[in-house]
Each structure stands twice: as C-alpha cells, then as structure tokens.
C-alpha cells in the first residue's frame, strides 16, 4: 500500500467515528492520487459534486471523490474552474466511476472527458440543458416527458438477436431495463439501463432539517433503512463533532444486524424460489415474517424505519425485550441451520447455483466490487472488520468471504453472515452498556463537510453532508453500494444462458431505488 504521506497532497483529518481525511486537489494531483489509490489496492467509494451558487466562493462547482486507502477514507475535493464545467475522466482508473460521472453530468452539468457521454439518470423527463441539482434550477417547473433515444451497444453476426426486458416486468419488482444480445440461449452481452425510479431525493434533502433528513435517508432504499439512516446521522454527527450516547450506538448496531438478517432470510427464500424450489420461499418467508414482527414489537416498525435519529435512537429497548430477542435468536439459528442443510443437499438446486453467474476475484477487483457480492468474489472488505466504528470495535466481527464468485458462493456468504449476525446480536445484548439513548446535536459549522460510512447488508453505504455559509444543508450525497455492483452483473451473466439471468440478478439483489435516487 502506498503511504498517504508519499502523495504530494495536504491531508486534513476529518473528526468523527471513521478514519477520514480531506484534501484539496487540482486536476493533476487528482489523477495521480487516484492512480496511486488504485495501484495500492484501494478503490473508489463515490463521486459527487457541489454547487456554491450564491455562496462566497471563487469557483462555483467542486467535484468530490471519496477513495479508500489502507489508512481509511480520503475525500478529495477538486474545484472546477472552467466554464462550462468539465473534469478529467476517472473511468479509466476506476471502472465504477463511469456511471457515476454520467449521473453527475445529468444532475449537475459537470462534463467528464469520458468516451461514453450518454445520459444515465435523465430519461427525458426534463430537458438536456437543465441540471436539477444546480442551485439556480427551478424545481417548480413541469416539463413534458419527451421520448428519449438511447443507443444500446449492438452485437452483430449470424444468429445474434436482441431481447429487451423491462422496465415493466411480469412480477412486482422494481423497474430496470435489460438489453440482452444472445445467440440461442447464450448471453453474449447484457446492457443495463437504470434510472426509472429517479425521485429527486438529493434535491429534496437540501430543503430539509437534519431531523427530517434522516427520515428521507431511511427511505432511499426501503430494505436498507437502518444502514442509510445510520450513515446519514453519522455524517451529521461527524460534521457537528458530536458523539451519540454509547448505548444508542450499540442499539443502532442491533438494528443494523437485524436488518441484515431480515434481508438475507428473504433473499435465501427468493433464491430457492427462482431455482424452482417454492418450499424454500415459504420456509424462509415464515422465518422473515416472524423476525420482522419482532421488529415491529420492539422497534415500532417492521423494517426498523425511523429508529435512528440524529444524536441517538428513537427509544430504548427494555430488558425484557432483550431476553425476547435472545430467545428468538436461538430459534432462528436452529431453523436456518436446518434449512441450510436442505439447500446444501438438494442436488437440483445446487446444480442451478454452482458455476452460475461467476465473477472471479481478479475481475471483481478490476470492477471495484464491494459488499456482499464482493466478498463472495474474494474481495475481503467489510467495514465492520476493516474500519470498525463503535460498537463493532468491541465485537470482533468475522468477515465472511468466498472465492468462487458464483450464485452458490453468494448463497453461502448469506448463510454464514446470518450466523455471524446472530452471534453479534447475542454479543451486543450481553454487553449492552447502560445510559441515555438520545442527545441533542449542536449546530453544525458553516461551509463544512461530514462523512458517514456504514456496512449495510448489501455493502457499504456512504453519505456526505455539506453545509453552506448559513449552516444549512448545501448538498447531501447518498451513495448506495449498488452503484459499484450493478455493472458487475453485466459481466456475471456473460456466457450464461438467458433463463439463468433472474437467478443471477437475485443473487446480487441490488437496489434500483437507492441507485436511481
């Protein structure tokens, strides 16, 4: 790993729960730092932009890039001085940057010098010349939805044909368009088109108070409400230099692990069902339902929404309830062990899972994969292990990895993570410190930045919060791990057969809503 000190940039530490530094860079040092990061085994976390219109600032636009180095998170800010705003392409260094850059142009009008200039999140719902996240855009105007030609990459040759799937599907799932180029049943190429669930969440954040913002953050992707909520409040608390009461941090971890288990249970059932084993779905659905009913009983919401608030958690968990959870953990562990044995020994199901949708570790590294899907492809990164915040620093989380990178590996990682999370829940409940669970956060400083970074069930959720000169939110960027892993599906399906695509897609189970924002 390259030592950060060898890089010719001035790093300022950002206070807070995660090791993070901040630096101003010009175009040249931006590229050299990114290159150094990539060569030292680091990767890209997120790219976003800010618009300092009305603010006393020399330049209007700034591009921010968050990178992971061995020492922690490095946030580079690159002021854009030219007009119309443009920035050097980072897609040649970091593969996942390509779509983030296209999205940044759609939203803020900062053009990257990349070969692919097609729109990404803009689907003709607003004109090409309008950039919604700019401070001078008028959000009250309505625009005619214009047809929007989008050139998919074509494969030519004898017997090649195209299958277009979605955005409306036969089942009730989120909308996304998938363009397959196939020969017979074999997939030569898949191209995704996302952005159908764009809701303007990032723009909405700017007009919300901090306490309201966490509610919105919890609704970015409904299945990761705890991860997004915690990342948001972590960013706000880091920004204000505030630490929430210790008991509330432990309760947040309890909620996060419960969310992880609920989603893994649901996915394992759905994966069985997509393999044609409806028995798996009904069994896992039953377990998940019991699990989220307990959530409702103890946390007041089936999916744990609005439990996390800035400065703590919404309410305490009583001692009787912790005993109830401990009891439930033992039941679930036994049941999941039993079901794991059935899945493992089912020849027909294993035949569907094994060697399907493979992403080998080398490719996964090149693609910059993260989270659960990354760990199933040998990417040994789990925030709870690498950069543990409180209480994970006291829990010794065992990271679950696999090197096969196929659907079976993602199933195994899910099973093992359930068992690990059950262990963590027991540990959290045994060690739960006493004290308050709420506190008031101080007013944030002006023209400042706070970062939040949490390992959700799908992968790491990243939130950046900028304040303006009036100490109000200038820009809030929410980054779902799906950004990194969506492009990986295009590679995972290559050479597979068309009917295996739903299974592969399900084994990743990425968020549309969290990606489209």
């Amino acid at each position, binding site marked *: 790993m390259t030592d950060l000190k060898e890089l010719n940039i001035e790093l300022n530490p950002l206070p807070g729960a995660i090791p993070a530094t901040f630096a101003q860079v010009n175009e040249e040092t931006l590229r050299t730092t990114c290159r150094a990061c990539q060569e030292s085994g680091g990767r890209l976390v997120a790219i976003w932009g800010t618009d300092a219109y009305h603010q006393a600032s020399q330049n209007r636009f700034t591009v921010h890039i968050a990178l992971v180095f061995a020492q922690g998170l490095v946030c580079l800010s690159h002021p854009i001085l030219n007009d119309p705003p443009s920035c050097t392409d980072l897609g040649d260094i970091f593969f996942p940057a390509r779509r983030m850059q296209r999205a940044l142009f759609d939203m803020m009008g900062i053009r990257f010098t990349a070969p692919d200039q097609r729109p990404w999140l803009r689907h003709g719902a607003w004109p090409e010349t309008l950039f919604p996240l700019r401070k001078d855009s008028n959000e009250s105007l309505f625009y005619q939805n214009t047809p929007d030609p989008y050139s998919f990459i074509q494969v030519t040759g004898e017997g090649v044909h195209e*299958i277009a799937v979605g955005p409306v599907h*036969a089942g*009730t799932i989120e909308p996304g368009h998938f363009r397959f180029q196939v020969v017979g049943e074999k997939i030569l190429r898949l191209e995704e088109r996302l952005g159908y669930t764009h809701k303007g969440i990032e723009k909405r954040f700017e007009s919300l108070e901090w306490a309201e913002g966490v509610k919105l953050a919890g609704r970015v992707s409904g299945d990761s409400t705890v991860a997004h909520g915690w990342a948001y409040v972590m960013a706000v608390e880091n920004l204000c230099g505030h630490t929430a009461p210790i008991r509330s941090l432990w309760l947040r971890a309890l909620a996060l692990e419960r969310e992880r288990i609920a989603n893994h249970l649901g996915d394992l059932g759905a994966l069985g069902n997509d393999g044609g084993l409806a028995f798996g779905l*009904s069994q896992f659905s039953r377990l998940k339902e019991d699990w989220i009913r307990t959530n409702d009983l103890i946390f007041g919401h089936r999916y744990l929404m609005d439990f996390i608030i800035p400065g703590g958690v919404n309410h305490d968990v009583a001692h009787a309830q912790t005993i109830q959870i401990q009891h439930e953990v033992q039941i679930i562990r036994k049941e999941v062990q039993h079901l794991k044995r059935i899945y493992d020994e089912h020849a027909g199901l294993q035949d569907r899972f094994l060697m399907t949708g493979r992403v080998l570790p080398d490719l996964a590294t090149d693609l910059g994969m993260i989270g659960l899907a990354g760990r199933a492809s040998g990417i040994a990164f789990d925030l709870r292990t690498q950069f543990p915040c409180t209480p994970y620093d006291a829990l010794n989380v065992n990271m679950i990895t696999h090197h096969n990178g196929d659907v079976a590996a993602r199933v195994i990682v899910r099973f093992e993570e359930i068992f690990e999370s059950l262990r963590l829940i027991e540990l959290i409940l045994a060690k739960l410190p006493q004290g308050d669970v709420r506190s008031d956060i101080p007013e944030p400083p002006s023209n400042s930045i706070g970062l939040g970074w949490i390992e959700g069930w799908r992968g790491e959720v990243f939130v950046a919060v900028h304040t303006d000169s009036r100490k109000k939110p200038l820009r809030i960027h929410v980054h779902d791990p799906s950004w990194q892993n969506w492009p990986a599906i295009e590679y995972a399906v290559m050479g597979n057969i068309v009917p295996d695509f739903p299974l592969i897609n399900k084994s990743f189970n990425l968020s549309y809503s969290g990606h489209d924002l």
Partner: protein
Amino acid sequence: MTNLYGFIFQFIQLIMTLVLSPLLLGWINQCRYWLQNRQGPGVFQPYRQLVKLFCKDAVLADNASPLFRMTPYFLFACMCLAGTIVPVLATNLPFASVADVIVLVGIFALARVFLALAAMDIGTGFGNLGARREMMIGFLAEPALLMVLFTPAFISHSTALTTIVDTLSHTRFIIYPSMAFAMASYLMVLLAENSRIPVDNPSTHLELTMIHEAMLLEYSARHLALVEWASSIKLYDYFVIGFALFVPWGIASGNHLSSMLLAFLALFIKLAFAGFGLAIVETLSAKMRIFRVPEFLGTAFMLAVLGTLTHFLLEA
C-alpha cells in the same frame, strides 16, 4: 357399441373432461400449497380464474393475425378431442375407434405447432423465446412418448387404446416388467409435456425463465381462458392416458350403469392419488437448467426403448 347409450356415455365423458380438468389442476395446486405449509385458495380456484378471464374484455395486439385469434379455439378443440379418444370410463365408446395412439400423439403435436406459431405471431422477444424452447422440448418428448406407447401396443398387438386397455385389464392378470420401464418414461414425458417442475415452472413470474407461459404472454381474457383451460385438459388427458396404460383396472368394458359408476369412482380415486403424487414430485425438485432437459428427455426415451426391448426379450 354404436347404440344411443354409447353416445350418451361418450358425451358424459366429454363433459367430465371439461369439468374435471380444472378441478384436477386445483387439487394439484392445493396439494402443493399444503406441502409448502401454505393454506392455498382451495381446489376450485381454477374455475374462478376461468370465470374471471371469460368476463374480461380481450386485448389484442395491433399486428395479431387470424392465426393468433384462432389458436385458442383450436387448442381447446384438440385437447377435448384427445380426451374423448382415451377410454376413461368405458372401452367401447363410439369415438374411441376414430383414432389410435399414434393419431393421439399427432393431435398433441398439432396443438403444439399452432401454439408455437401463435406465440411468434406478435413478434415479441418472449413469444419467440418460449416457442423456441417449447419446440426443443417437443421434438425430444414426442419420440419418447411414441416409444412408451409402443410397449403396450406390442403387448396387445394393437395401437388402438381400447384394445390395449381390454388386453391389459380384462384378460388374466400378468405383470409385465417392460411396462415398468414404460411407466417411468411416461412420467418423465408427462412432466415435460405439461410444463411442470422440474422442466418448466407453471407458477413463475420470471419472464426470462418461462417456456409455456412465455408463449401465452400476449393472450388475454377469453383467449387466455381457453388456452389455460386447454392446458389443464392436456394435463388431464395425460393422466387418463397414463391410467389407461398402466392402471386400467376399473375402466368398464360394458355399458352397464353400475360398472360405469364404479369406473367413475375408480377414476376419481386415481386422479386424487396421481395429483397428490405429482405435487410431491414438484415440491421436492428444483427447476432444472434448460440444457439439462435434453438429458432428462433422453433418459425418458432410453427407458422407453428399454421397455420395448424387455418386452421382446422376456415377454414375447
């Protein structure tokens, strides 16, 4: 028997085909739900489904040809015809002499060709995908089915189903080892031909994995109702053909009312058991990868050939 009773019983058999087939499907689904620890909507759900679909207004694609509109009626007619040829209640019904087992296979093939053509008619990707997969399964399943039917045909020296049933059930009781092979093979063909798990998944919502359902995506209302009904009749037909070949006991040889009632009772019990058996098979297995289907049906064909060989070696 070409008297009036014969025609009455033939008519009753046709009505039974129409009425019992959705019930059979409902029963199989209900068994599957029970086996999955679910409550299920009850055995009458397919009837409600049909009523609902018949009450709706049909939506047709702009470029739908007459072939597309005609196919549901044609399918329905084919499956009903097949249901009347098979001796379900009695062996000596007038329609039974119209066709033998080879024609029966031909009728199923005809229906398949029409459905595949209709699926490609609109020109959507899924229709083509489904039709292509269906034809792949069809060309593998049909020879296996023919080979299965040859074994009892050799035993009874006739390809007419009535003669086969008469020979197997009404002569003295003999155990034919060859029929065990034929039966195993027939069960595999039944799963493939009726798009059941492990070959196809009739209850999937994943459009990319569909075979039979992919061909029906463009149909709605009465057309869809007829196609769905035809599918359930096809399943019923396969069940009663299986009964006629492998468990023919109970099928009446005369036209006495009492033996008819007995035959009806026997049929009902057989359907209930066989339906439950199918539900068990479907619950226990996962759907196989589509390129495993040729292996699966190749095995079926090989078993059927073994059945015929066994017949010549051991029984002739």
